[in-house]
């Protein structure tokens, strides 16, 4: 159980706002921090890791105080034992993949663990390569593998898939899901990608201007509850074209472009790039095994 009750001033493009969080995160949760850039998602992640210090408040993890502004307790990142996957992966260029993993070991005699993790992540074949020889997806796997070396209490993922193409992203989403299931590590993911949230997480904090405005399951946070749709897909608006009295909206959903018709009132608040929910209840989706 993680209890966070903190405030921290954030300097954003729109001036200074206060990041305020007062939440409990349960053991084994896969939580998403979702919100626009500058809303405080990454800062919250960094505060949990000890890389930034809140102005006031407390952080307790499994009964252990990590931060308490009144008692002047602030555990260093070294002592928190969290796994942090950085957006740029932060692999050490002077070490091979194997050495990157070995470096994370506190006790060098336990090098068997390196082989174990290399195998779980299916990166044995990369073991002697240097980070700069790896592709983006491979780097990401190595970065996750390295965090697992210390048996972390928590896995903090700062937009770990944002630099990858969508096919690689889907594959790595599955892998993150499998790791979460296998190790049962409480995980917190920062992302802008709604489909990622649906695939991975059981809980979402929607953050806006430093405040957590919603806290629920992905389907509750992202679905309009008035729709009793039988089937829903999240997509992104690619274009809006007028055709007689109707509008044709091209939507990118699950890597496919779907054309949807809409009337004036549907497209009134719609802009290119918006995330939308496609839902249908009049038709029965047809199941076909492929």
């Amino acid at each position, binding site marked *: 159980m993680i209890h966070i009750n903190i405030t921290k001033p954030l300097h954003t493009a729109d001036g200074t706002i206060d990041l305020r969080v007062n939440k409990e995160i349960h053991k084994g949760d896969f939580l998403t921090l979702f919100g626009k850039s500058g809303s405080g998602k990454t800062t919250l992640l960094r505060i949990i*890791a*000890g*890389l930034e210090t809140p102005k006031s408040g407390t952080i307790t993890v499994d009964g252990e105080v990590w931060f308490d502004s009144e008692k002047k307790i602030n555990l*260093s*990142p*070294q*002592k*928190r*034992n*969290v*796994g*942090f996957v*950085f*957006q*740029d992966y*932060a692999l*050490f*260029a*002077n070490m091979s993949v194997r050495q990157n993993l070995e*470096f*994370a070991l*506190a006790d060098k005699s336990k090098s068997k663990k390196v082989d174990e993790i290399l195998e779980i992540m299916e990166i044995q074949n990369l073991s002697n390569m*240097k980070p*700069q*020889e790896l592709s983006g997806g491979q780097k990401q796997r190595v970065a996750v593998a*390295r*965090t697992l*070396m*210390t048996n972390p209490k928590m896995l903090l993922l700062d937009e770990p898939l944002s630099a990858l193409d969508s096919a690689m992203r889907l594959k790595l989403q599955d892998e993150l899901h499998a790791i979460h299931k296998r190790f049962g590590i409480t995980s917190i993911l920062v992302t802008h990608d709604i489909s990622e949230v649906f695939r991975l997480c059981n809980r979402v904090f929607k953050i806006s201007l430093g405040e957590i405005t919603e806290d629920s399951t992905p389907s509750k946070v992202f679905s309009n509850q008035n729709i009793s749709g039988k089937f829903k897909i999240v997509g992104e608006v690619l274009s809006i074209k007028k055709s007689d009295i109707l509008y044709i909206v091209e939507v990118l959903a699950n890597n496919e472009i779907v054309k949807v018709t809409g009337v004036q009132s549907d497209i009134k608040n719609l802009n290119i790039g918006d995330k939308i929910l496609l839902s249908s209840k009049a038709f029965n989706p047809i199941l076909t095994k492929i």
Partner: protein
Amino acid sequence: MDTEFLQTMLLTFKLASITTVLLLFIGIPLGYFLSQTSSRFKPIIEAIVSMPLVLPPSVLGFYLLLAFSPKNGFGAWLDTNFDLRLVFSFEGLVLASILFSLPFMVHPIQSGFSTLGKSLKEASFVLGKSRLQTLWFVLLPNIRPSLLTASVITFAHTVGEFGVVLMIGGNIAGETKVASIAIYDEVESLNYSLANQYAFTLFVISFAILLFVYAVNKSMMRSEFR
């Protein structure tokens, strides 16, 4: 080749080697500090470190001469308490060279550290590694080209220094007479062939040093960014 020539060249390289090694120990912590700090004193420290770049060497030499002179407070204190006389001595030359070559060591190291992403250091901290372990195993190995450049430029610059050395070292054979002084000395006494011997040696060695740096740096870059 006469013994005085050899003695002078050896002294020159001894001075440059000692200066470079000592400056590495000063330059790494100072460069690291400057690359990380956001203290309001940072511009002041940076300005002091860079002063030798813009000051005529004779200015620095003049003030060092005053400071180290046994007739003045600091010099007298060193003389009575440590029996250390920094004027017209090899130890004084080392100290003056360290001050004068400081920016040549600190600047490349500082910019090397600055180009490393913040996440590298943070990743190491999160993995439970101390500041010192992070510096030694992660940060320093990743700025190897900067360390090499800094050391070699410092070395070469110390070999070539004239003004400071003349002001506080003078021209004592085997103690403070380095190659650049010797050239001046030989020209003064119209001994052009010996001056040429010194000058040409410095010319060739400087070129060889720079060639070495650029060649090694290129191959380092290649192996790291294949």
